[in-house]
């Protein structure tokens, strides 16, 4: 199963008022080519995708917040799953693309003993799944978006061969942050000072 194919299935399920947050590298480039508008915070550094999304769930409790994280990133700070379980945000959907490899450092622990879904369950997140086909991905994500969470879905994908070139002004640095803040200010639920 390929990450990009999964993201193409995900994009139509995300309405314009939902929030998305992505980890560095492949998730950012792929997602930025699929969801051009709306509130997207792209390219969170390793370990920071789920914590950032958790903050958004508290700020926008009536909207789904979708974290698009990856195995190498999540394993930098698996303790964030404990915080998610404890805060218990009903509007949270965490999708972890697990390709079993770092971008430049070889295989990750998930190719050997580590099971991210079991770690999340141990942390206290009940609604967890591991999916290995596009059908299972679609069904699991649809169910997660339609029901109260927090949901934690591990998606087993193959290492990415193709690359999509993201627009650096939309995916990186201050320009990306300004796009994001602009979308936040225009969000119907935003309560400015």
């Amino acid at each position, binding site marked *: 199963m390929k990450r990009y194919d999964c993201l193409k299935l995900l994009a139509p399920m995300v309405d314009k008022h939902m929030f998305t947050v992505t980890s560095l590298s492949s998730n950012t480039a792929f997602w930025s080519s699929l969801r051009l508008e709306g509130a997207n915070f792209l390219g969170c550094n390793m370990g920071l995708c789920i914590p950032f999304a958790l903050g958004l769930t508290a700020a926008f409790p009536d909207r789904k917040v979708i974290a698009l994280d990856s195995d190498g990133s999540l*394993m*930098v*700070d*698996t*303790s964030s799953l*404990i*915080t998610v*379980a*404890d805060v*218990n945000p009903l509007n949270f959907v965490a999708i972890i693309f697990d390709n079993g490899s770092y971008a430049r450092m070889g295989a990750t*622990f998930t190719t*050997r*003993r*580590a*099971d*991210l*879904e*079991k*770690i*999340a*369950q*141990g*942390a*206290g*997140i009940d609604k967890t799944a591991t999916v290995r086909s596009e059908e299972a991905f679609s069904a699991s994500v649809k169910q997660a978006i339609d029901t109260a969470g927090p949901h934690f879905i591990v998606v087993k994908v193959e290492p990415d061969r193709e690359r999509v070139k993201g627009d650096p002004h939309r995916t990186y640095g201050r320009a990306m942050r300004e796009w994001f803040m602009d979308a936040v200010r225009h969000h119907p639920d935003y309560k400015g000072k």
Partner: protein
Amino acid sequence: MKRFDCLKLLAPMVDEHMLAVTSLSTNAPFWYNVRPEGPNFFALNMGLCLPFALGLTMAFPRRKVISIDSDGSLMNDSSSLITVADVNPGNLVAFVFDNSSYAFMGSTFTARRTDLAKMAQGAGIAKSGTVRTLEEFSAAAKQAMESTGPHFIVAKVEPDAGRVAADRSRTSGRPMREWFMDAVHRHPDYQVRR
């Protein structure tokens, strides 16, 4: 179940050549009281107890290394469990005294939804369990000391009511580190790298 009672049961199982590492706060003074001699590294800051012990397992592969950690500390870096599972050190015995409370910040996550033994299993440590009585603690500790690990034992204890006094020059800071290094230098397995 009280943490100090568990540590009193553990101390006689730890021979003079085994290495012990403790987290901050309660574990350090309690362990000093029951095992003042031998290679002990006391009072690692939060999140660092298990990683430090993991390093020692590689430096001393023929000796048991005992990590005496606590829930608040381990949850600072639960990813260290993934590293432990991956390195898979046969000589590591990791205890986590889970009193479900921070020293000064109220209750921890284990008082609510979090199950540390289950997280460790998810990380890939197969020999992982939770004990709630002194009999269970004693049996699990004995079995872990006598068999190949890594072992991960969560001991559910009550919040510690009292404190025990401990010589601070043995349990913290540079003097503690010097005691530890001295014990390491005199250890029969110690090899100087040239």
